[in-house]
């Protein structure tokens, strides 16, 4: 059984490796995205579609999801499905607020990570030691965490001035950082409304000024995660636990230990996402403020093909859509219809010319024309759809991209030491 798995794996891995984008594709892709957004702005005349305000908000809305997804990445790479991210985030929101109240923002960050890690540890105990079905354990954690946070909030915030059973008093926020002296020149360029350059300036401004320290930490954790999981022996061992734990065991890897570590780290990262919500996105803990972001993080990670880069794009997409609909409403989303039409058109042409898939290409072009028609005849996306648009978009992209996904081979399976022989 284990040899079969190994053979499957090697056959499967080769095309994945060949498909991986080279490093230069990243800046090219980003520049192309900026150019297309700029084009859409010029055609539709909607200046807020890629303004620095929208992009800043997008980054702030994407971070909690990115944290959750990063947590999911650690766990799932070690072979443990982590649907409990939502609950670990909930624990993190309470931990962040409580830590920040008693010891300032840095204590809040540590406390958020710690509370999430406790959730992760429970998940590890259930799935790795007791062999509970991963989904069942995760759902249980989601339920218990909501109750626990609710109890803790009532116990610790209920009697405080400005707090209540469901809300904390205002807490100290982590400091904002940025490159000084760069905001004004970038604003000037952004205001000019030049093609491409203004959007580039807006993006640079959003990425270099007024960032929360926790955002910077989060982005650094992405780099760190990539380095640790793909460039160190420790990361290789964790990934081997997710691909084939019996093979890892035969090579002397302590599978239980590595799974425990990965799932606990996963919880800590999700907890940081929760802390971000209660300390950075706003400055209070509020019951149910996580509102499904853990699930979206998990979806973003799957859409990102269990890799940090893809996950970052997935959460970025969600954050961008959310920022756009919150700030601009239906009218801003309406402008995006044009973007979707352009993308589908490009995709259709690419399918026909480069890959010779006439039918798929024709369908894509037909849909592109339909979307363009909708854009021409309507003025706005209905208000009933706008709050749901980020979820819808992420779901569609997920469905569209899911044909090429390759999860870790042994994900969700119960591993028992010595049973592989």
């Amino acid at each position, binding site marked *: 059984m284990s040899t079969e798995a190994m053979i499957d794996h090697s056959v499967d891995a080769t095309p994945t490796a060949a498909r991986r984008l080279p490093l230069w594709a990243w800046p090219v892709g980003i520049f192309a995205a900026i150019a297309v957004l700029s084009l859409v702005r010029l055609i539709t005349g909607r200046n807020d579609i890629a303004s620095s305000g929208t992009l800043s*908000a997008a980054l702030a809305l994407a971070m909690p999801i990115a944290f959750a997804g990063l947590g999911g990445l650690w766990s799932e790479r070690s072979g443990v499905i982590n649907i409990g991210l939502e609950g670990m985030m909930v624990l993190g929101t309470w931990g962040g607020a409580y830590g920040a109240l008693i010891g300032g923002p840095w204590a809040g960050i540590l406390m958020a990570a710690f509370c999430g890690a406790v959730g992760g540890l429970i998940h590890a105990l259930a799935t790795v030691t007791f062999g509970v079905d991963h989904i069942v354990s995760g759902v249980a954690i989601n*339920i218990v965490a909501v109750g626990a946070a609710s109890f803790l909030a009532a116990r610790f915030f209920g009697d405080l001035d400005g707090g*209540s059973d469901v809300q904390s008093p205002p807490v100290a926020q982590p400091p904002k950082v940025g490159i000084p002296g760069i905001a004004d020149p970038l604003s000037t360029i952004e205001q000019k409304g030049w093609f491409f350059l203004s959007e580039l300036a807006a993006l640079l401004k959003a990425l270099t000024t007024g960032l929360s320290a926790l955002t910077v930490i989060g982005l650094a954790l992405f780099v760190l995660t990539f380095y640790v999981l793909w460039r160190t022996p420790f990361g290789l061992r964790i990934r081997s636990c997710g691909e084939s734990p019996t093979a890892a065991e035969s090579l002397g890897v302590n599978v239980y230990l590595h799974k425990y570590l990965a799932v606990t780290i996963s919880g800590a990262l999700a907890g940081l996402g929760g802390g971000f919500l209660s300390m950075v996105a*706003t400055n209070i803990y509020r019951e149910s403020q996580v509102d499904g972001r853990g699930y979206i993080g998990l979806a973003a990670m799957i859409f990102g093909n269990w890799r940090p880069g893809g996950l970052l794009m997935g959460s970025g997409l969600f954050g961008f859509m959310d920022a756009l609909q*919150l700030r601009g*409403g239906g009218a801003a989303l309406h402008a995006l219809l044009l973007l979707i039409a352009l993308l589908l058109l490009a995709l259709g042409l690419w399918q026909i010319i480069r890959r010779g898939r006439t039918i798929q290409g024709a369908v894509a072009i037909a849909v592109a024309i339909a979307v363009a028609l909708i854009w021409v005849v309507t003025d706005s996306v209905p208000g009933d759809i706008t709050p749901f648009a980020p979820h819808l978009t992420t779901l569609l992209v997920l469905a569209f991209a899911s044909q090429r996904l390759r999860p870790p081979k042994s994900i969700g399976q119960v591993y028992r030491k010595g049973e592989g022989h």
Partner: protein
Amino acid sequence: MRHSLLKVAALSSAATLTLAACGGSDSDTDATSGGGEGGEGTDVKACLAYDVGGRGDQSFNDSAAKGLDRAKDELKIEAEEVEASQGENDAAREDRLNQLVDAGCTNVIGVGFIYATAMGNAAKANPDVQFAIIDDASEASAGDNVAQLTFAEHEGSFLVGAAAAMKSKSNKVGFIGGMDVPLINKFEAGFEAGAKEVNPDIEVQTKYLAEDGSGFADPAKGQTAAEGMFDKGADVVYHAAGGSGAGVFKAAKAAKKMAIGVDSDQAKTAEADVQDVILTSMVKNVDVAVFDNIKATVDGEKQSGNIVFDLKAGGVDYATTGGKVDDIKDKLEEYKQKIIDGDITVPEK
């Protein structure tokens, strides 16, 4: 993996249901009973079932709590409070109301339209108990023993809309609603009518935060939406989004613009460092309605049917805390009188 994804989908929907039930029972056990020494002059026990957010939301629920506190002090009644949870269903709410009846409550007050269906059912099952629901006048909650306490939010919103238009320099104002439902639409309609009355050319930007109750408890969303409006040139933003309003005030503070509060006099109840950006608040005197309802029972009367608290009855008003509307107060009073006299009819949608 396909199997696990299916499992995920099935279980997470199951989880939502369980969570809802869980949350309900959780809140019930949380119930804080106050005024234990009551019962000297009366055997009335008034019980409040809060909307999502509960006591401490600095807004709608706090206003109801104020009415209950006043009744406890002045009428020496017994009281009990329970809080709602996010995402629960009507069955869970009905359970909560029935548990309050079991706990000996003679007056059960549902704070918020989310209790409509639950209250209708609970009222039918307990004909001897006086029920009251705030913000709902629908068939679902109607009954001989149900008082439907509603407010003319559109009239109060008209006044703050007029204030916003008089104070706006950019001729752009904004409205942020927590949820796109008829009740919140009333706030928007009144606000827009008031602003347009002062300045027919004014631009009113509108945004609803969510399709469900989460829009009333997500300050981060309120902040992002308000930032968007300020970036697009608005300089006064009115929110009817409960707890999400805290984010609106933060955005106003950061952009050095103004915001208008809702339900309570938020220049008093909001966080101290943002109180100075609050131009005025559309005060909805839920406390008056709650107090009157309890007092009626203490006096041996029975309230039933739809009772509207409008501008005339003092059910809604604008707040003057902070002195930011002192210079336009005469004009606002003029509009107020016109609405009371029926010279201006404020649209409800």
